[in-house]
């Protein structure tokens, strides 16, 4: 088993004919992901790496009714529309890679998807991988190996770093989710944790947080309240970042005195979580708990 994504995923790539869409379609196919269709308005009838392209999700789903997952590489101005199209076409999981989407647009489509029962990962995220089963994202597949550890991460590149460090030590992963760095995102730490809690294959969890926001504190609270019962190891990026400065597009920023490194680490440690000082300590800490 795995969470949200396994070998039964049948994937549509929205924005498949673009540079990134096409490149990552190839990598996902090579990884073994079952991509059944692509969608780009006006490009219907083409194929990309052997995948048939349609003008609309409606047509794609009509020809490939088994499709249940989509990944979006559409530029920011058109990405919200692509999300609505995916949700309305009945996708159960939609991964939004696109960055720079206006935050009020994200606010709306995230609430819309929730009403319709679709899980959104992202936007501005690397996606999701269940090693050995399927990859719906842009992470380097070879970095991850099948195994018992779940990873939920606010940071893209750092996820690869940590997955790589674990894999090198022979510790594989059940599912790895990069939830995205924007202020408003579809799937939060705690929501993702609910899935991992129910997954018998996952024996431990790595949380990769960042300064800013209060998702790490909420995760700590969930653990403290006994709603997440598996061992957790965490890493928080931005220990040495100065307050009030925005670090990158992602919006890792400490505002109004909340979201500090110290506050997050204290909350997590109080909940019994071991917090690594560098990403490279994580394999050792994981070995201690499983």
């Amino acid at each position: 088993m795995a969470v949200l994504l396994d070998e039964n995923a049948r994937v549509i790539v929205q924005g498949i004919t673009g540079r990134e869409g096409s490149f990552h379609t190839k990598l996902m196919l090579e990884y073994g992901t079952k991509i059944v269709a692509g969608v780009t308005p006006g490009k219907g009838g083409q194929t990309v790496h052997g995948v048939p392209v349609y003008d609309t999700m409606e047509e794609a789903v009509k020809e490939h009714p088994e499709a249940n997952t989509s990944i979006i590489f559409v530029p920011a101005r058109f990405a919200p529309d692509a999300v609505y199209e995916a949700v309305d076409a009945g996708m159960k999981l939609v991964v939004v890679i696109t960055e720079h989407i206006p935050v009020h647009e994200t606010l709306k489509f995230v609430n819309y998807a929730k009403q319709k029962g679709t899980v959104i990962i992202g936007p501005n995220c690397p996606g999701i991988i269940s090693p050995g089963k399927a990859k719906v994202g842009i992470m380097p597949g070879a970095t991850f190996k099948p195994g018992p550890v779940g990873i939920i991460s606010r940071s893209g590149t750092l996820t690869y770093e940590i997955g790589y460090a674990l894999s090198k030590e022979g510790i594989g992963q059940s599912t790895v989710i990069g939830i995205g760095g924007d202020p408003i995102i579809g799937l939060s730490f705690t929501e993702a944790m609910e899935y991992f809690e129910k997954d018998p294959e996952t024996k431990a969890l790595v949380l990769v947080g960042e300064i800013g926001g209060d998702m790490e504190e909420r995760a700590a609270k969930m653990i403290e309240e006994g709603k997440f019962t598996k061992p957790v190891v965490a890493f928080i990026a931005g220990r040495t970042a100065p307050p009030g400065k925005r670090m990158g597009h992602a919006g890792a920023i400490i505002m109004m005195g909340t979201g500090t490194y110290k506050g997050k680490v204290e909350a997590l440690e109080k909940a019994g979580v071991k917090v690594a000082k560098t990403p490279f300590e994580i394999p050792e800490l994981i070995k201690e708990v499983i």
Partner: protein
Amino acid sequence: MKLFEYEAKHILSQKGVKIPRSVLIAPGDDPLAKMEEAGLKPPVVVKAQVLVAGRGKAGGIKMAKTEEDVKNIVNELFNKPIKGIVPKLLLIEEAIPHETELYAAIVLDRSERKPVILASKYGGMDIEEISREKPESIVRQHVDPFIGLKGYQARLIGKKIGLSGKALASFAKFLTALYEAFTEYDAELAESNPLALVGDEVIPLDARMIVDDNSLYRHPEIAKERLEESGEYTEWEIKARKMGLGFVELDGEIGIIGNGAGLTMTTMDLVYEFGGKPANFLDIGGGASAELVKKAVSFLIEYPKAKKIFINIFGGITRGDEVAKGIVKALEELGDVSKPIVIRLAGTKAEEGKKILEEAGIAAFTDPIEAVKKVIEM
């Protein structure tokens, strides 16, 4: 992007909010003539239009009781930097006598994924102070983004901060306008503090708005970067932003480039951990081209605080070969570079990248700990 006070007030005024009568003064303007045109007489408040936080405490807001005062204060403010920033415009506003100062703001609640209204009857202090000193006074109300702020919610908030009758109606109307401004301008924050209660009417004495950077393309009327005026950025940060680089100046000596905010911050943390000090944060983001990498490397070579450079790349959507090409190009173009450069390359196309670097005679690490130790000992 932060809006100036006068811009935020202008937006609110267009939404039907009564704002103080005012006039905008540029250097060289005759403030008294401008005031007369606008029908303004002392006492007035003269306010430096700068985007730095704590403008009032830093001396950027002055009361002028006489025409003489006005001249002196205008002269003073145009020549005095507020936290390092000399204002390009001053706002002269009628002084509005009032007893009560309220607080009202709209921000995005990340957990609920909804806008949330914050209000308190204790305005004048900033929200951190209110949270500390009168936490129970802060009223919170989430808003359904599809429905918008309902009238009854606006009234309920007003009631909870102690208003009634016509003052309550005026406050509810103000909140409705503030919410309209918040959504129409794709704001991350819309705030009035203090929001004065004058008789039965609320009047925003100050107003702040931060527009989502990703939405600026939808607001051409405000979409010019005001980097210099903002006071948020140092000279090198402004230079970097104009080049499209996500750069933050720090105080150490090791220049840092990473891909992704998380990895770049972690690279800073690692440098600290092993006894070094980062000179900056520079995130080349996801899927950077060779051209962008070249720009970033060239920038750090010129940036004087960086005595050495540490490039830490774990490729995902970013490809190692593109990164390598960018580095090689930067070094080729700049010719004789005396700053030591340490590169760590892993992930997508890392092997191809390393080959390119090797061919150009540049060594690259796979292990970041080895790499960081190397750069510190150099």
